[in-house]
């Protein structure tokens, strides 16, 4: 479904000097259809850059990014992105935010309304359709951000630390709801996080991304059946393993 082939991404040096800043070097990765893949790594390792490449927000310096067999040239509604900040449009109500992509696609008003209502219900925001984003809590905004991409029925969900700014309880609730939606609709999910427990709890497979020089350091398939017990020994073991891998890397890398 998603395929990265020998990706490198460098940003030009801030002072215009010859050596640019290398964020990703020689990264290859494939995500199977319907798979929930977590990319785990310390901050500054290029996780978000990797996701932005798949989203089509940025282009690789070298290598190819393929989505459904075609090279990614621009962002599009087939790859729904949920950002760390909900980035709902503040001048639109929840309903209008959710309808935004449908409207851009020219879906007639009545059908738009029906689809949006369905998506809003799916993320548990019914009753808040006419609220503006600023009155919602962080968790509710993130639900709305999820609804606005789900309504477009994307082939893949690209999630960039979507629950990173939420309190622990909201985070766990939203993880469970994401899993519920994912299991019901079986979309491919590329989920970026620095949170070890989150990766272990959610993923079919976890890819550990190290600093640019190291690239992908390790990869682990999480065989545990769902629903997983957050406090169970099996999950704890996975978490320990992942943490051991992470501890082998330098932390707090400069960006």
């Amino acid at each position, binding site marked *: 479904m998603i395929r990265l082939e020998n990706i490198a991404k460098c940003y030009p040096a801030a002072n215009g000097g010859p050596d640019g800043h290398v964020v990703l070097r020689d990264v290859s990765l494939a995500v199977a259809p319907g798979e929930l893949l977590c990319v785990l790594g310390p901050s500054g390792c290029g996780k978000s850059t990797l996701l932005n490449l798949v989203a089509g927000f940025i282009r690789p310096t070298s290598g190819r990014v393929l989505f459904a067999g075609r090279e990614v040239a*621009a*962002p*599009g509604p087939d790859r*729904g992105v949920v950002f760390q900040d909900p980035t709902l449009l503040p*001048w639109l109500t929840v309903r209008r935010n959710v309808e935004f*992509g449908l*409207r*851009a696609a020219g879906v007639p008003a009545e059908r738009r309304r029906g689809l949006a209502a369905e998506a809003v219900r799916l993320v548990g925001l019914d009753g808040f359709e006419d609220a503006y984003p600023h009155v919602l809590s962080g968790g509710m905004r993130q639900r709305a951000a999820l609804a*606005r*991409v789900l309504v477009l029925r994307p082939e893949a969900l690209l999630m960039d630390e979507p629950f990173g700014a939420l309190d622990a309880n909201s985070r766990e609730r939203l993880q469970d709801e994401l899993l519920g939606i994912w299991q019901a609709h079986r979309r491919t999910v590329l989920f970026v996080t620095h949170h070890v427990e989150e990766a272990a709890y959610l993923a079919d497979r976890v890819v550990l991304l190290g600093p640019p020089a190291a690239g992908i350091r390790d990869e682990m398939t999480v065989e545990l059946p769902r629903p997983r017990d957050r406090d169970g020994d099996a999950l704890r073991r996975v978490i320990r393993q992942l943490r051991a891998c992470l501890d082998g890397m330098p932390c707090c890398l400069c960006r």
Partner: protein
Amino acid sequence: MNMFERTRRRAAPVLVAAGLAAGAWYAVAFLVGWARGVAFPTPHETAAELARLLAGRTLSGHLIYRHVGASLARWAAGFGIAAAAGTAYGLLAGWWRGLERATAPLVHAAQTVPGLAWIHAALLLFGIGERATVFMIAAAAFPPVAVSVLGGVKRVDATYVRAARMMGARGPTLLLRVLLPGALPHVLSGLRVGLGNGWRVVVAAEMIVGTGTGLGYSIIQARWTLDYTSGFACVAIICLVGLAVERCVFAPLERRTVERWHMPRAA
């Protein structure tokens, strides 16, 4: 705090300021009368003249309402053109760097030209009359609108644009449904400045281009007939119109949009 008390608290500083201004006006009127021996209209004389005008006294052969209406119509036409053109330009130039690089210096240069200085161009293009006035108003109101909208568009959070493109928005959708509302605080502040510029030019242009009606025309006619008091009354009307537009157009517009959405205001 009850309604009455709240109103009183808000009104008190305004009343004090107005009282001080009127006091200063009286002082100037008195000093001018004493030092130069000419009658300088006082606040109450101006108010009385204003009342007479509103009650139906004609000025340069027309009712005051006719003059106000004529000025407002010119203003609306000129400002309408400037607002539409300035917003369109700001959106396009904010989106397309090439256009900005090529044209922004010209717009900044145009901003330094006083509205009335367009008079030669206006007369050559349109001859004496209505259209020349409207052209000057538009020329004076366009640059501030264009510059503010352009600046506002460039400050729209890039993640909104990313999110919108991810949801499939392209071209006009992106411009009108993301960049325009995203830049709205700046758009409004640009329109405010443009409106003020335009209003000033209406009055000045009417003084020069013999329009036969309008507040500016009335002021300059009053000057030739030494009817200073009605000149003052016309200035008072100009102030009141400006105040009314702010209170009845911009303030409600801001409450309904930017404030309702909790967007940060433009500086």
